[in-house]
């Protein structure tokens, strides 16, 4: 598998401990454990603490998951409740046949 040596660098932007953020983080962790075990890094950025970081990744919506690596850059907004969409967005699973 060519994805073997790749590491998924994931950033989750949140604003405080809102219900949506907590749900999103929990969902994300669950998917990663299931599909990317040992090949992912999750960085949680709280914009209430570091508001200046919002500009760099063009964050508008909260929560937003940004996949920087592997290319292409994708953003997934929302509480990540739809597993199918998240996995497609993260390039873990090809779009539905």
């Amino acid at each position, binding site marked *: 598998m060519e994805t073997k040596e790749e590491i998924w660098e994931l950033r989750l932007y949140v604003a405080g401990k809102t219900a*949506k953020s907590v749900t999103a983080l929990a969902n994300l962790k669950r998917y990663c454990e299931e599909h990317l075990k040992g090949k992912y890094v999750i960085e949680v950025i709280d914009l209430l603490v570091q508001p200046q970081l*919002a500009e760099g990744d063009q964050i508008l919506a909260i929560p*937003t998951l940004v996949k920087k690596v592997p290319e292409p850059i*994708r953003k997934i907004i929302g509480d990540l409740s*739809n597993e199918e969409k998240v996995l497609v967005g993260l390039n873990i699973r090809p779009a539905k046949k």
Partner: protein
Amino acid sequence: MSLTSSQKPTQPLPSFPKALTGIIGLDEITGGGLPKDRPTLICGGTGCGKTLFSIEFIVHGAVMYDEPGVFMSFEEKAEELVLNVASLGYDLNQLQQDKLIRLDHVRIERSEIEETGEYDLDGLFIRLGHAIDSIGAKRVVLDTIENLFSGLLDQGILRAELRRLFEWLKVKKVTTIITGERGGGTLTRHGLEEYISDCVILLDHRVTNQISTRLLRIVKYRGSVHGTNEYPFLIDRSGISVLPVTSLTLTHDVTSERISSGIPSLDKMLEGKGFFRGSSILVSGTAGTGKTSIAASFAHEACNRKERCIYFAFEESPQQIIRNMRSIGFDLQQHIDAGLLKFHASRPTLNGLEMHLVSIHKLIEDFDPHLVVLDPITNLITVGTVSEVKSMLIRLIDFLQSRQITVMFTALSLNTIVSEQTDEGVSSLVDAWLLVRDIESNGERNRGMYVMKSRGMKHSNQVREFVITDGGLHLVDVFLSPEGVLTGSAREAQQLQEVTGKALRDYALNRKDREIERKRLVLESKIASLKEEFESVQDELNKAYVEEELRKDVLEKNREQLIKNRHNEQ
């Protein structure tokens, strides 16, 4: 009830706080700017100046009113914005370094974004809040926030979040401009006007007869009076200028100072003093009657008094006018060189009427003249209807009179009927109206001029013949003869005839004098000869008398001798 209420202590009502935009004219229409600490919606079609409008609001706030601002762009990149406004003379980079302005480009790439589940726009709030707090901004522009609608799918969330955003901006106490693209049938494509209820300004770009005019209208301004008309505005090198074209009152100051028209004989017709300063003068006449010459003479005279003058030429180029006026003795070039005279020549079709008005305004603001000449206003009719031209001229006259600027219009009237109004119907607006007309008789055409009206002064009611010579313009008394008014060569013939008649009369008088002299001489000599005759008769008589005496003496002596002799003989 009413009695008690009128006796209430008169507390000054809190005035509606406003934020000045610094855009020429807009602050006048809105009575002091946009509603402070509230959002204002600016909507309009593509290319009607929304972004420029809002960037000016931000820059002016930062530079002139000490109110830093955040410009959040959803369309143009920060670098593009910097370039775009550099042409207006603003250095956004420098302003950003000085922490007076903050540009933030929000990019939404639909293809990068996947939506799943619930979300909100806290990211945008935090971002904007951070930008505002980092420079202490008092002004915010969101240009064009509607782009979010194409980037995010969940309209329900988006609408709820936008409503929250505008409320939040009010709480943040920043004056906000939100721009929106105009949609079919609604002010904005996505109905932003539903959320912004304080102030809505509509920009429009209208093309009539292939001539475009930019217009601005305040659709709504809660809590404040405002002008409701469509106001034309202009975008040029110095940015936007809006023209508050209709003045609501007629309350300008007047002066009784008089200024010469440059034609002494015309001044004489106006109580010998000329026109009032700050009045509006219309010169109308048929083609080739010397309207431009009169206008040039007026301008020339003003410049000779060291007053500034702008000449708006809609028909001829400045060089042409200068050349033509030199032929009648007006050297306009020297005034241009001295910076007193300014020509502004443009074809009326260059832009719409309103734009003409705006550019005239701007030039007048810049040059601050004492006299303005518009030559001719008739040509403006090609770009508008009669009523449009009239309303434009009303506004122009209002504007000029409020600044005590004298204005002279020339107008071409198409027929020679004296009572005919000018096409633009401005004759009722102007203070003085000179009519130049053709007088055709005896196979030649001459110019006659008279003062149709001149408010506030006793003016001559006479028709004068208007003569253009190498030395300037003159008015000559016309000759009245049994056949009517005489002008041109008929007048000259009449003048000659009168001269001849006088000579003949003089001659006749002389001859009579000489006759009398001669008669006197004859009589005198007669008297002398009679005297001589009398003396000779007297002499004759005397002689006889003396002889008689002598004879008597001698006879006496002789007789005595004889007696003696006789005695001696005895």
